[in-house]
């Protein structure tokens, strides 16, 4: 492909600042987590699906559901997981377990870390994680909550 020509390149870097807007529905969801340690979902008034993180609309029935809130129990099941052992640039230091969790009463899942596992021995850790295993949410103390998904952790029951 090359004809013995010295092939040059120059370094570059994208370093951009943003301020991501949560909007009314997600703001309410995060404020309920921060102020009341409660997980609130929206429920479609037509198909009855319970959606969390909440959406202001049901994408299937295509109606607004922004005022139809329900509270969920701080427990659920692990639906899918992976044990991350590779260091991705700019992402958390491994090892860690990421999962999709279905909270009791919800029709959707949320991503989160599966906390509370000893990960030093991965073979051993793998044996302790199962699709369908029950989990619970444990909220940080009120003064440490900041209105983010990391205001709670998820652990095996």
């Amino acid at each position, binding site marked *: 492909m090359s004809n013995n020509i010295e092939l040059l390149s120059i370094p570059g870097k994208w370093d951009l600042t943003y301020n991501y807007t949560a909007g009314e529905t997600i703001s309410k969801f995060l404020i309920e987590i921060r102020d009341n340690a409660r997980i609130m979902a929206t429920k479609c008034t037509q198909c009855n699906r319970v959606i969390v993180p909440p959406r202001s609309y049901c994408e299937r029935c295509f109606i607004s559901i922004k005022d139809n809130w329900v509270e969920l129990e701080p427990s659920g099941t692990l639906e899918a997981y992976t044990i991350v052992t590779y260091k991705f640039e700019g992402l958390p230091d491994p090892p860690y377990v*990421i999962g999709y969790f279905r909270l009791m009463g919800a029709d959707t899942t949320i991503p989160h870390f599966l906390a509370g596992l000893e990960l030093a021995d991965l073979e051993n850790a793998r044996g302790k994680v199962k699709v369908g295993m029950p989990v619970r949410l444990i909220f940080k103390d009120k003064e440490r909550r900041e209105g983010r998904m990391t205001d709670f952790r998820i652990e095996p029951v």
Partner: protein
Amino acid sequence: MGRRVGIVGTGQTKYRSKRRDCSAPDLVYEATSSALADADLNLTDIDAIVFGLAPEALDGINSMDKWCADAAGARNKSFIRVHTGGATGSSVANAAVYHVASGMFDTVLAVAMERVGETPDAQTILNRIYDPVVASDFGLNIINHVAMETSRGMETYGFTEEHMAMISVKNHLNAFNNPYAHLRINVTVEDVLKSPVVCWPLKLLDCCPRSDGACAVIFASEKKAKKMAPVPVWVNGMAALTDITVPGEVRGGQEQIRMTAARAYQMAGIDNPKEQIQVVECYAPFSSLELMYYETLGFCERKDVVKLVESGFGAMTGKVPFVPSGGVMCTNPIGATALIRIAEAAIQVMGKGDKRQVPDVTNALATGYGGSPGPGSASFVTVMVLGKK
């Protein structure tokens, strides 16, 4: 579906982790000029261009379609860019078919490119495709997302890490027959199983590389295609769908592929894929995804997936070879990858596959998959049935 549409030529660059000899437009020119040469056409024969490029941050240049337009031959012609993540390439092909089927244009060039080699870690960028407010705290990216689909798949399909390794071995072997392929390495089941775990259950050799490259395919109306090509390849069926279903929800990602295939098969008159389709170029950047295609594309029932893998159903010597090119596991210039599936399927129907040619191909299948069904993201699924008749 409007006017009948045929493929009259394909062009590909050589794929490498970094094509240091080429600027981005050079890559697009290489693929475009190869496709024109393959079809024995001049740029004056092309009426419109559809261009594909996935997330800009992979390349580190915003709206690179503008930089590459002239290299795609777009001067004084209609030019649009299409972007559906990993399905960009097949969405570009679909858009080109719509151009011709509508009657607006007779001959349309689809070209897609990516240089994933410009940045040291594509997964850092792919972490930013999710909802920044509720999802970005957890290090999500495409590899760990697919690892999660795989952990579910192991339970629902009953396949093991060994079965995944068998797919990896087959595809790496196939890549030796493809002069364009990026990874050409000998791999054994043991090598795969012993390769470093990236996101369990995915190990390094279950995963695709990051590639630089471009691919082009020329589509023409029936009348033109019959004049232009000795063996025009007919687009007999195509379908695309989008969903936001997240793993763990009812009707997950695998069901979406099943629905898309069913729609494309209906259009193409395929009711028994195992007997009617001779070769499949599926979009599987990870070994576990190919396993699940055996079922979702209708080649077997879920309970028989493991049996099919063990019997070598998808090997070059098997009943229906899957990815004779080595597939996405050996070459992944993201925005171009799904167009490569269509180019490779067309090459099989044309009989131009040389060492990777499957005998007696009358129908070939190509799929595309983009996005990731997580919070703030959506998945894009495409299926195209190409035929000699």
